[in-house]
Every structure is written in C-alpha cells, then in structure tokens.
C-alpha cells in the first residue's frame, strides 16, 4: 500500500489502482455523512477534486492522486457513508483508476513514511 500527503491510500489491483482515505484521515474527519463520487469513465488529472466527503463537522475534497481514468466507484458509500469510519482502509475504498504507468506509485509514501508524516 502507498500513501499521499493528502491522506489517501493507494493499492494496486491488477492494472488498476484502488484509492481510499487513511484511518487517520477518517478519524480526523469524524462521522462521515455524505459522499459524492465521480462518474465512471472520467479522465482526471492529479489534484483534480474528484470526491466530496462531508462529516458532521465540515466538507472536504479528495484529490485525484495520479493522472488517469476513473474505472469504478464504490457506490455503496453514497448510501452508507458511515462505512468510511468503520473500515476506511478496507471496504470503504472510493474509486479505482487506470493509470498509464504504475511506476508513478514509486514516488509516493510507503507506510513507514506516511506514519512519520502524520506523527
């Protein structure tokens, strides 16, 4: 698993990258009550605002961690946003994306580096 300084995690599955937010981010956000996901097939550029996530406290944006195409979204989160608090690094992934070259993930934080970043 790889991490960004925007508190996203990325996991490679075949030729796709699965993206979600970290347990640390979910805890900081508090109870999640609303999620807006992008359309499948959307072409995104790194740092595009792709997901809106609202907790009881505030609204935040999730940025695209890489350039690529959104291939699948986890629509169940729209009905059950609280899953983000229950299982942020497992069941509550946000979207899958296809990127041209998976080696761009090498530049992201590994788990130890992310832990150091948030501590």
């Amino acid at each position, binding site marked *: 698993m790889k991490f960004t300084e925007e508190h996203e995690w990325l996991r490679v599955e075949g030729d796709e990258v699965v993206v979600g937010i970290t347990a640390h981010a979910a805890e900081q956000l508090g109870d999640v*009550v609303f999620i807006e996901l992008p359309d499948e097939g959307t072409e995104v550029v790194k740092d595009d605002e792709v997901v809106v996530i609202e907790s*009881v406290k505030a*609204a935040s944006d999730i940025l695209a961690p890489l350039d690529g195409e959104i291939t699948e979204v986890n629509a169940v989160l*729209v009905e059950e946003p609280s899953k983000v608090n229950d299982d942020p690094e497992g069941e509550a992934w946000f979207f899958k994306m296809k990127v041209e070259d998976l080696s761009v993930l090498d530049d992201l934080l590994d788990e130890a580096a992310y832990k150091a970043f948030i501590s």
Partner: protein
Amino acid sequence: MSDLKRTPLYDLHVALGAKMVPFAGYEMPVQYSLGVMKEHLHCRAAAGLFDVSHMGQVVLRASDPQIAKAGIERLIPQDVMGLEEDRQRYGFFTNDTGGIEDDLMFANRGDHMFVVVNAACKDADVAHLRAALEPDVTVKLLENRALLALQGPKAETVLAEHHPMVAEMRFMDVATVPLAGAECWVSRSGYTGEDGYEISVPAAAATDLAKALLAHDDVEAIGLGARDSLRLEAGLCLYGHDMDPKTSPIEASLTWAIQKTRRAGGARAGGFPGADRIFQEMADGPARRRVGLKPEGRAPMREGTMLYADESSDAPIGIVTSGGFGPSVGAPVAMGTVDAAMASEGTLLFGDVRGKRLPVAVAKLPFVAPGFKR
C-alpha cells in the same frame, strides 16, 4: 492556544479524551471519544452532560428587586415585571434599530435577578447593563461559578438521585439545590430540545459534581459539536448565525418570545430599544424570515449556502444561517433567512452547493419533538 481561557472543568475534559478547540475565547471540548454523532444520539436517548461554563452568569441586585426587574425591562422586549419568583424566561437584548445584540435567559431569584448570556457577548452585555442600569442596579459578572447542562430524557432520574427536589421542577423553574455538597442554582431548561437542567455550581465543586453525574451509566460527556446539531434539530437560534445586530426578533421568528404585555396595545407596550421597527414588522410582516430547511438530497447545506427560487435565477432569495447533518433526523437539516413570500412551509427552494442548485424545502421547526416537562 495560550491566550485562551479555561473553564474549571478543563482538566476533566482532557482526562476524558476531549478534543479541545478555541471557542469564544475559551478552550472548549468539541467532542469526546464517542464522536459527535454518537454523543448527539446518546443525549436524545439517555442523558448528556455539557460544560457551558464559558457562558456569562450575571447577578443583578437593587435595593428593591422591582428596580432590577424594571431596569431589565428597559433593555429587552420581554415581560420581566410579570415573571414570578423562581421562574426563568428566554429573552434578547435589542438595539436601537431593532436588531438583536444577544439572547439570554433571565430568572427571578427573589431578592435578585440572574441572567445567563452568550460567552462571545458577555463583556459587551455586562457593559451594556452597567451603562443602562448603574448605579441603581449593581451588575456582577460571576467569575467563580461553572455552568453545567444535563440534558436528555434520563436527566431527571439522574439528577434526582442527587436531590429529589429537582424532579418536582417544571420547565423553566429555578431553584437553589445542594448538589455534590455545594449550593447550586438549578433551572429546568436547556438548549437541546430535550428535558433537562442547567446547573450553576461553585467553580471549586464543579469537577466533583461533573464526575458524580458522569458516573451514572446513562450519562455521557457531550461536546460543542453535538450541542450544535442538537440545538439545530430543536430549531433553536445560535447567536451570530441565526440572529445578529441587523436581524430583528420578528425576522428571526422569535415573536413568540415577546409577551403580549410588551406588544403594541399591551399594558407595558414598548419602552425597549428598537420597539418602533419591531412593532412595525409585527403589524406589517417582516421582509424576510427565519425558517426551517430540509434539503431533499443527502448533501448538507451549510451556513452561507445561498438560496434561490428556482434552478436558474441570478438573485438569491435567502441564505442558510445554520446547517449540517441531523443525527436524529438521519438527514441534513438547516435553518435560514428567506424572503417572506418564500417562507411558507413546503415551499421548494434551491440551495447552491458547490455550484449545483439542489432542492430544499421550507420545513416546520423543530425537526424533532421537544421533550420539555411543562
């Protein structure tokens, strides 16, 4: 947070795992380990304990209690003279243009009047009271007492274990009650829409009392986050958001809080700042009015969301003044000020959320049934 003040319960909040944030010049708990959602739901299901010691507790005394009551009546549009001993009422300071300077609770405690005001306004309120009422009335801001609120359907049984007298109190009664070995001033009131009590306790005894209440299985500590969602669902105004110095009580839909005796034609009509505008709006109707708002989708409409009559018009007809997710409603809820013509229940409006016009209906307040013991 070095310039921030702390309440007498600060160490207890930290020990309970609270997340502390700056609020109105104080370091206050925004939530504890349960989190806003569970704290909110617990308060509606059982009982919640809130530290509201940042609020201003003010004692007004005069040689004759009637002088203090008459003095307060000159500053607020409420019936103070007619408030019986051991009773409390909700009110607000108005300004010369009929806007609201702060809202407050005032109680007739026999030989003195006891007033509770918002933390952010307390210094201004005390200065206002002193300028208007001294020397006939002495105005004392109490620095040596904490203020706790115990709210929820189990509040009565919990507090009655400490003194049975509190079970006999009705909504808005006030009494002096010994609790945890200290002289407490208790009112049966609160700002959550639930039954409950507000307890003024000497600062030195506050932590012991809070711990004793929290020791009960039904009681959880509740932070400012859930306090806000609870009062929003209850349709209660938050000063500086749903009302301000430009908003009249009529626009804020607080006409109910102006007793008949102070209204046009009443025995003691007028005589408070801004009476002209307030009476005119009561007669002719205000140009805009605070209403409940129920977004039809799942997206919360937060404070500042502009409201429109349809999906395309350029000119907004209102604005959200408080909004978020209502845990007990299970959906987003909001309040806002809208043009009077758009203020009737069921009117469909559109809120601009991130550039999209989303449907929102004018809704009846409160969003949850009140639990007051009348």
